[in-house]
């Protein structure tokens, strides 16, 4: 198979890499590519490239695109169990199954991700506090390992490969197909409670009081607010709406999301577009506009507000941005969050609204990100040395509060920080050494973090 030489990047446009890119259209072609071991020294799989950093980049070897391996293999309308190839997107799953009464059991803030990427990042969503990560709903997957074997991995078969691959950022091999459960829903709508919190303590208190009543819970935080308003936010919590709860005009076709115009950011914005003043104004307006209220909201508006703006990452200009997502355990989450927000607010580094969420129980994925506590995610535009200095401070705060950073977002972490944050790293390395003894699956991120030590 021919390679295309192409510059690839993470969604944050922060780490452009010249890559040799392959795109099999049949599973058989993928096997041939992998069997022909000399073609590339190493490989990494890539879905839609929505991880923000360098986890789906491999400048020293080959990159395998999964976009054309997107077939559904089986669907059971009784149980909602889907089997499909790894390149099937969440967008496609919604398009196909929502009208039949099924939605994703777990979804992140974009539907432009693949099934393979969802499993290897062990993604979480607004329902993490009650449902956990996507792996909770994955029954099994087929993994092509570094030794050329195809392993069916589940909770009862090849268990250690299952838990190393879930959240393992594609370093255990290539997921060929996955089998997972969808969630039955009555409509394409949610009823959502909007609630303002004047500061972080109020937000924490509101989360604690009410979260169990909601399947979905998240807050948008104004990270430029400081002092007594530090952490002021708008909580958005909701549940799937039953047909009877919908206004009459939507009851005709309750499972259809109203069509919206797609807008697109046509080119990289110049650097001055997102200056601190603009962002501050936007955040203040956003807070002012959201009164405490109940609303019926469609799925796209609730889960995927940014998907309405294609290429929204271009707003951050050619130099790109970093998405910083940290998680603190309950005992240190208040102090950690305050320290983080103060550092960000003090830096005057423009960032649009950040997302705050309570996380629930940890899964068994060896490198899975979520565990109980609070997580905060925010964008930081690339301002060069200023950004690097800020990130160093933030990383130190996260470490000091026993927190961790999400690999699907990470583009800058040091190896030392990483090994302190992920206590099961050695276990992961042992499983990887068995599945992929020659380290055929490597990413730029794995090299940076020292997950893979090459000879």
């Amino acid at each position, binding site marked *: 198979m021919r390679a295309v030489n192409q510059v690839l990047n993470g969604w944050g446009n922060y780490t452009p890499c010249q890559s040799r890119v392959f795109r099999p259209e049949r599973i*058989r072609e993928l096997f041939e590519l992998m069997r022909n071991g000399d073609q590339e020294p190493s490989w990494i799989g890539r879905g839609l490239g929505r991880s923000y950093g360098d986890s789906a980049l491999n400048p020293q070897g080959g990159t395998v695109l999964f976009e054309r391996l997107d077939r*559904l*293999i089986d669907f059971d309308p009784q149980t909602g169990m889907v089997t499909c190839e790894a390149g099937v997107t969440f967008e496609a799953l919604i398009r196909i199954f929502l009208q039949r009464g099924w939605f994703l059991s777990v979804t992140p803030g974009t539907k432009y991700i693949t099934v393979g990427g969802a499993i290897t990042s062990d993604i979480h969503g607004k329902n993490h506090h009650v449902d956990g990560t996507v792996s909770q709903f994955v029954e099994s997957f087929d993994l092509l390992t570094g030794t050329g074997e195809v392993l069916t991995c589940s909770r009862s078969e090849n268990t250690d490969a299952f838990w190393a691959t879930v959240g393992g950022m594609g370093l255990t091999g290539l997921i060929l197909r996955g089998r997972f459960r969808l969630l039955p829903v009555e409509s394409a709508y949610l009823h959502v409670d909007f609630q303002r919190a004047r500061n972080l303590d109020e937000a924490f208190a509101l989360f604690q009081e009410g979260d169990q009543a909601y399947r979905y819970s998240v807050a948008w935080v104004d990270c430029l607010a400081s002092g007594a308003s530090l952490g002021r936010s708008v909580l958005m919590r909701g549940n799937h709406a039953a047909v009877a709860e919908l206004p009459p005009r939507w009851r005709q076709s309750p499972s259809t999301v109203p069509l919206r115009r797609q807008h697109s950011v046509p080119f990289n914005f110049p650097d001055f577009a997102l200056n601190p003043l603009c962002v501050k104004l936007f955040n203040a307006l956003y807070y002012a506009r959201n009164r405490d209220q109940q609303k019926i909201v469609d799925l796209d508006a609730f889960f995927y507000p940014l998907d309405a703006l294609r290429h929204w990452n271009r707003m951050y200009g050619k130099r790109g941005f970093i998405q910083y997502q940290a998680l603190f355990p309950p005992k240190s989450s208040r102090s950690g969050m305050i320290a983080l927000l103060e550092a960000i607010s003090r830096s005057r580094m423009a960032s649009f609204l950040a997302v705050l969420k309570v996380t629930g129980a940890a899964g068994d994925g060896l490198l899975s990100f979520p565990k109980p506590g609070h997580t905060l995610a925010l964008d930081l535009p690339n301002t060069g040395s200023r950004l690097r200095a800020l990130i160093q401070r933030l990383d130190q705060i996260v470490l000091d509060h026993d927190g961790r950073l999400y690999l699907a977002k990470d583009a800058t972490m040091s190896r030392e920080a990483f090994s302190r944050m992920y206590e099961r790293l050695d276990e992961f390395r042992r499983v990887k050494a068995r599945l992929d003894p020659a380290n055929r699956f490597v990413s730029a991120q794995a090299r940076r973090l020292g997950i893979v030590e090459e000879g």
Partner: protein
Amino acid sequence: MSAHERGNGSGITLILGATSSIGKSLARRLAAEGRGLIVAGRDEPELRAIADDLKIRYQVPVRVLRYDATDFESHPAFFATCAAGEDGPLTGVVFCQGAMFDQAEAERDFALSRQMIDVNYTSAVSLLSLAAAHLARRGTGYLCALSSVAGDRGRQSNFLYGATKSALTTYLQGLRNRLARQGVAVITVKPGFVDTAMTWGLLKPGSPLVASPDQVARAIERAIRQQKDHVYAPWFWRWIMAIIKSIPEPIFKRMRL
């Protein structure tokens, strides 16, 4: 209610070359319109994967049939099997199969030229003549075939491929003329650069001149629905080719295109 029951489900469409990039995209577009399908090609496991996907996505009947494009003797029996389905009458045939080799290699190796001629043209005559007879007997339906902009003018960089497409275009033109009074539409589609397995590594991805298979599939589906005679896909190739065709031969022969 499935798309098939809702839509124009009365007839079945046969896709020849259904494992090609455009064939796969087109199958999805046609199934989304509620058409039942026969997906035909050489790679049977791949065909089954395609059929399962279509059945789950669009809830239409899909049959899998294997055939060999260059085993001409087998074509009448193969076509009879296609026409004898139980899901509904065969009312449409789309010819998506194709072979393309590097011009220089094909100049050195006649076997490669021969294969392009056989797959792109001889096989089309064999299969589409059978299809034409079937549809003419029914007095309705359509034939659609993928030719190429490469057939519009012979260029040094790919005329061995282009000539097979040129022959196909002329064949379709005549067939259209013959079938016009028998209620059968013949649709010629000429794609430009398409981002397929065939062209991966040869074209610059992301160039505005390169279309996705789905873009082309949408154009084909529209052409079928509107019973167009011939279309370029995407549409702008009509104007590009109009310019290329208008260059006088004494000048053209010295150009590097």
